C-alpha cells in the first residue's frame, strides 16, 4: 500500500494494480485451506478409519445444518447485525411441524410449515431491529427465549414423533452414492450465497452497509429494507435447518438444537467474517464449516470427548484472528 495520491499519476487511472496472485496467497481463505488440509492429513494418520468414503460422508452431517444457517448469518454479520435466535427458531419451527404432523399434514406441507415459520420468526426479528431501531444482539437474546419458550409451552415434556416416512429423506436420504441430501443442499446453497454476496448488486450493498451504514444510506442504499431481508433470510435458513434436523432425528423436542447459535457464529467468525461488519467471504465460511466438521469428527474417531474438541475450536478462533495481528505488529517492528 505504498501508493498514495501525493505521487503524480497520469490522468488515466488504472482499474487495479496487479497483485491478485499475491493477495490470494496471503488471504484468509488460503490460511483456512492450509488449516483444513493440515487437519485432514493429521486425521488420516491419526485414525485408520478416517479415509473411508462413508466416514467422510458421515462427517458432513456434523456441519451441514449449522453451515446452512452460517451462510445467511455471514451476510447478516457482514451487514453489521447478528441473530442469536437461530437455534430457537429451529425449535419453534420443528415444534410446529410436529404439531402439523400430528394432524396428518403430509411431507410437502411440513416442509412449507418449517420454512414458513423460520421466515416468520426472521421477519419478527427484522421488524424489531429495523422497524424500532433496536440493537440486534439484545433483540435476538429476547426472541431466543421467546421462540424456544413458545416451543416449551406447546410441547412441554412431550415429544412429537411419527413423521411421515417420506419426510425422513431430507435429513437421512442420499442424492447420489455417498452424497447426502443435506450435503447437496449445503453445496447448492453455498453457491447461491456466494453468487448473491459476491456477484450481485444486493451483495455489494450488504458490504457497503457493513462498512458504513450512514454513508450507504446517504448513497441511496435502503439500509433498513436490506437488513430486514437479511433477517428474513437467516430465519428462512433456520427454517430449512429445522426441516433437516427434524427429519434427521425423526422427532421433535423443545430442547432441539440447543446451543447451535454460538456454534454458527463461531463458524462465521472463523470463516473470516468481521464481527464488526463490512468484510468476509462465503468461501471462508464454507471452509470454516468444513474445518469444524473435520475437527469434531476427527477427534470423535479418536474418542476424544466433545468438550476437548471445543477447546480446539476456541483456540483456533482466537489464534486465527490474533495471528495476523501479531504478524503485522512483529513485521512492522522489524521494519522500523
Amino acid at each position, binding site marked *: 500500500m505504498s501508493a498514495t495520491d501525493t505521487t503524480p499519476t497520469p490522468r488515466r487511472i488504472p482499474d487495479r494494480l496487479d497483485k491478485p496472485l499475491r493477495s490470494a496467497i496471503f488471504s484468509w481463505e488460503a490460511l483456512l485451506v492450509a488449516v483444513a488440509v493440515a487437519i485432514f492429513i493429521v486425521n488420516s494418520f491419526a485414525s485408520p478409519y478416517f479415509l473411508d468414503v462413508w466416514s467422510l460422508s458421515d*462427517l458432513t452431517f456434523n456441519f451441514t445444518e449449522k453451515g446452512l444457517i452460517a451462510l445467511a448469518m455471514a451476510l447478516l454479520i457482514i451487514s453489521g447485525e447478528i441473530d442469536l435466535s437461530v437455534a430457537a427458531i429451529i425449535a419453534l419451527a420443528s415444534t410446529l411441524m410436529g404439531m402439523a404432523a400430528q394432524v396428518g399434514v403430509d411431507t410437502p406441507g411440513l416442509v412449507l410449515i418449517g420454512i414458513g415459520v423460520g421466515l416468520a420468526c426472521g421477519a419478527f426479528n427484522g421488524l424489531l431491529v429495523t422497524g424500532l431501531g433496536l440493537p440486534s444482539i439484545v433483540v435476538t437474546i429476547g426472541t431466543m427465549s421467546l421462540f424456544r419458550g413458545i416451543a416449551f409451552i406447546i410441547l412441554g415434556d412431550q415429544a412429537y414423533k411419527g413423521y411421515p416416512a417420506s419426510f425422513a429423506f431430507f*435429513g*437421512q436420504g442420499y442424492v447420489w452414492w455417498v452424497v447426502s441430501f443435506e450435503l447437496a443442499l449445503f453445496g447448492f446453497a453455498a453457491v447461491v450465497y456466494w453468487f448473491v454476496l459476491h456477484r450481485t448488486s444486493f451483495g455489494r450493498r450488504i458490504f457497503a452497509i457493513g462498512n458504513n451504514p450512514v454513508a450507504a444510506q446517504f448513497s441511496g442504499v435502503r439500509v433498513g429494507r436490506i437488513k430486514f431481508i437479511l433477517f428474513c433470510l437467516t430465519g428462512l435458513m433456520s427454517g430449512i435447518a429445522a426441516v433437516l434436523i427434524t427429519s434427521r432425528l425423526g422427532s421433535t*423436542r423443545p*430442547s432441539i438444537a*440447543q446451543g447451535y447459535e454460538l456454534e454458527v457464529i463461531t463458524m462465521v467468525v472463523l470463516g473470516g467474517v468481521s464481527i464488526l461488519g463490512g468484510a468476509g467471504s462465503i468461501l471462508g465460511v464454507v471452509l470454516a464449516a468444513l474445518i469444524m466438521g473435520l475437527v469434531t469428527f476427527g477427534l*470423535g474417531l479418536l474418542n476424544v470427548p466433545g468438550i476437548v474438541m471445543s477447546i480446539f475450536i476456541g483456540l483456533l478462533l482466537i489464534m486465527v484472528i490474533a495471528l495476523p495481528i501479531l504478524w503485522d505488529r512483529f513485521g512492522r517492528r522489524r521494519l522500523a
Partner: protein
Amino acid sequence: ENVKIALVVKSLGNGFFDAANKGAQEAAKELGDVEVIYTGPTKATAEAQIEVVNALIAQKVNAIAISANDADALVPALKKAMERGITVISWDSGVAPEGRQMHLNPSDTNLIGETIVKLAADYLPEGGDVAILSASSTATNQNAWIEAAKKALPEKFPKINLVATVYGDDDSAKSTDEAKGLLKSYPNLKAIIAPTTVGVVAAAQVVTDENLIGKVNVTGLALPSEFKKFIDNGASQAVALWNPIDLGYSAVYLAHDLAVKKMEAKPGAKLPIGRVGEVTLDDTNSAPMAAPFTFDKTNIEEFSKIY
C-alpha cells in the same frame, strides 16, 4: 482381533455411568477378547450423542450399547449403525424398539415405579402429600417409572397423595429451584421423590438448607457414594438403586453375545449374562436386570465405598 464394544452414556463425568464403566471393564476382562470404548457427549443432548454414534460407526465397532438421551431422536442414527452391521442394544435409558435389537432395563419398570413410592410410604404411616422431582421431561426411563408409580398409587398406597411432578433437567441449579418451589407451594409436603441421581442430591440439599430434616423426607434413586451424606444427616431415610456396575457388566455381556455369538434377540428369548444370571426378553425385546436395591442407614456406609 478384538471385539470392539462401545458403551455410550448420556453424558461423561456422571458417577453412575463411571460405575457402569467399571462393570463393563470387568465384563471385558471376563470375556477375554473384548475392547470397551467408554464414550459419550459432555452435554446430555441427543444431537451430541448422534455425533458420537456417527464416529463409532466410522470406527466400525462391533457393537454399541447406549443409554439414550432421547428415545426417538437417536433411532435414525442407530438404524444406520445396524444397517452397517453393528449390533445395537440400549440399556438404562432406552431407545424405541426400531432403533435397537434389545433393551436392558436396569430393573422392572413397574417394580421401580412401585419401589420409589414405597420408599416414601414406608415412612409415612399416616399418609400425606408427596411430589416427584424428575430429570428432563424427555427422559424415557424416568417417564416410564413415574407412569408406573402413578398406576401403583391408588391400589397399593391409597393414603399417599401425589400433588405434583416437576422437572429439574438433571441440572443441579434447576433441580434446586424446582425443589424449593415444591416446598413453598405445598407446605404440607411430606416427601419428595426424585428418581434421578442429580435431582435427589439437589432435593436433599434443599431440605437440609431449609431446616426441614424430619419434616420432609427425600427419597428416590441415588448413588450411595454421592448420597451417603444425606442418609447420615437424616434428610433421607432410604433410597434405592440397582447396581450400576452390574448394569454396565450386563450391557457389555449382552452386546458381546449378540454380536459375536450371533444370538438372536426376539421376544421370549432367554439370554445369559455371566455372573448376573439370565434375562428373558418381553414382547418389546426388553428385559429387566434385577430388582432395585434399597440403601438406608444400615448399609449405606458399605455400599458408598463401592459405587
